[in-house]
């Protein structure tokens, strides 16, 4: 697995190096200069406003107030995000990557586990950059916040969401390979929707759409109990001191490790779905959204494993590759 991590890092490093070199070549073209001024101006203003907010006197209770708001709404957002992530990613089997990358990995002497490992390793720089950007924003907006702690927490949360989504995609691949319906992968989302409706019924809101009603739902069982573990994680992330968030960080790290173990536990037949994803991505890039939608709706080239009268069912049931 170390080999594929270094391979992923090599691809990332080389491609970003070439992007930079290409950018330098087109830097003084009028179009690039105009884009640079617009993006640079926006980024500069954002940076200035964040720094200014950081050093503005916000009063002693500002951090606590902001944290308590986060403790109420962020766990719910996280739960919804996880539900949609499994549902959204679960609809598409295979790993989402560019066509060239997919072909390169599938042709190379790599096992299925190594391909999943490569995919996860390739996402890390993106996760780190996203976590750093959002942490910086929060650091500016919430004086007294701990930048390092929030960055680490957010990175681990994003990592967990990513691997959760990958597990969903692999599950879909596995179901496809066996010719089974993946409809039940939508069960978590259906459950989440059901829980929200039950909470709404239990809370009997007088003003169904108000913020106060939403807060009451969140504080009412069973949603309150459901969100409690996520609240613990968020509480740790927004803690002002590193020691206050170590428990949450440890829990997140263990959860991520567990999810990665699940993703790599057994070699899932991911070739078909990954190639299809890559082809859809290629269609989207070259022909646009309409062609992509049409291609997505087209009948899928799916192996008719258990439904077909396969001439050699014993061979069919064995994993194709990735035993190593």
């Amino acid at each position: 697995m170390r080999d594929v991590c270094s391979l992923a890092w090599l691809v990332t490093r080389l491609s970003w190096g070439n992007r930079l070199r290409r950018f330098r070549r087109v830097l003084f073209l009028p179009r690039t200069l105009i884009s640079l001024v617009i993006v640079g101006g926006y980024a500069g203003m954002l940076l200035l406003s964040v720094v200014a907010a950081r050093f503005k006197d916000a009063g002693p209770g500002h951090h606590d107030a902001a944290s308590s708001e986060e403790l109420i709404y962020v766990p719910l957002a996280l739960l919804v995000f996880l539900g949609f992530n499994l549902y959204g990613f679960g609809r598409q089997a295979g790993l989402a990557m560019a066509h060239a990358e997919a072909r390169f990995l599938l042709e190379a002497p790599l096992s299925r586990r190594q391909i999943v490992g490569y995919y996860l390793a390739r996402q890390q720089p993106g996760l780190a950059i996203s976590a750093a950007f959002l942490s910086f924003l929060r650091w500016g907006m919430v004086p007294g916040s701990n930048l390092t702690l929030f960055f680490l927490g957010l990175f681990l949360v994003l990592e967990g969401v990513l691997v959760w989504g990958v597990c969903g995609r692999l599950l879909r691949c596995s179901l496809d390979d066996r010719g089974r319906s993946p409809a039940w992968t939508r069960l978590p989302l259906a459950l989440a929707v059901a829980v929200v409706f039950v909470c709404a019924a239990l809370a009997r809101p007088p003003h169904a759409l108000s913020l106060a009603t939403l807060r009451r739902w969140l504080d009412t069982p069973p949603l309150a109990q459901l969100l409690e573990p996520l609240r613990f994680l968020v509480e740790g992330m927004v803690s002002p001191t590193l020691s206050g968030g170590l428990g949450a960080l440890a829990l997140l790290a263990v959860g991520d490790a567990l999810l990665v173990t699940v993703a790599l536990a057994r070699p899932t037949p991911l070739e078909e779905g990954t190639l299809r994803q890559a082809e859809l991505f290629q269609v989207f890039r070259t022909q646009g959204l309409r062609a992509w939608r049409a291609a997505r709706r087209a009948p899928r080239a799916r192996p008719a494993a258990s439904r077909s009268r396969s001439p050699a069912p014993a061979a069919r049931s064995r994993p194709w590759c990735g035993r190593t």
Partner: protein
Amino acid sequence: MIHATALTRDYETLRALDRLDLSVAQGEVLGLVGANGAGKTTCLQCLAGIMPPTSGSVHIDGISMLDDPRAAKRRVAFIPDTPHLFEYLTVREHLLLIARVYGLEGWESRADALLEEFELTAKKDALPGELSRGMKQKAAICQAFLPDPAVILCDEPLSGLDPLGRRNMREALLARARAGATLIVSSHQLDLVAAMSSRILILDKGKRLLEGTLPEIQRRLPQLDGAASLEDVFLAAVSGVGQIEPESDEDVGPGQP
């Protein structure tokens, strides 16, 4: 070298390969011919381990693609009809990636020789966006040749190449075959297939329609004269006009069981 048994590949509404048996000996060049949708690309993808077959087995140099795919894939190179190159990696960096994945020692001199052979030395630091279609194809071929594979599977390998490039490419492929590599060449350019191949396999709807050397195939189509080209043979075979005589014992190719 390549041995596939009862290779079957089902799609939702289609059986692309139907219990195809295939054997190709070391140093042999097999021409794979068929109409669009006959199953040529699916066959090559199954042999290369890119796409798992629904059933059947593939052995490369005695190694099962099912049981030890990494070792089997290490011996195989696949040249697709459309070159798939990373958008932000240069030609030489693609070769670096291949060297890293295959664990090649001292790959630089070999890479330089390949770039020289395929006239890409001047373009080694170019990104794919700066290359013509033919150059991209040559870069993909360099990638395939770098690990010195024992089996080379070519799916329309000469598409996008100019006449000189085609000739050089054909010579390069044949040189590898003379050096002991096993080749399967799938192409609609039937003159090229006839010139390169020691044996020809005509696929139709995922099944083997005809197989053998060109004279052997000609003998099985009595309505054609002895000077019929592969194109005539192919058209006569797939159109169903006339009869195909059953395979005789001496027509069985070298790789046949």
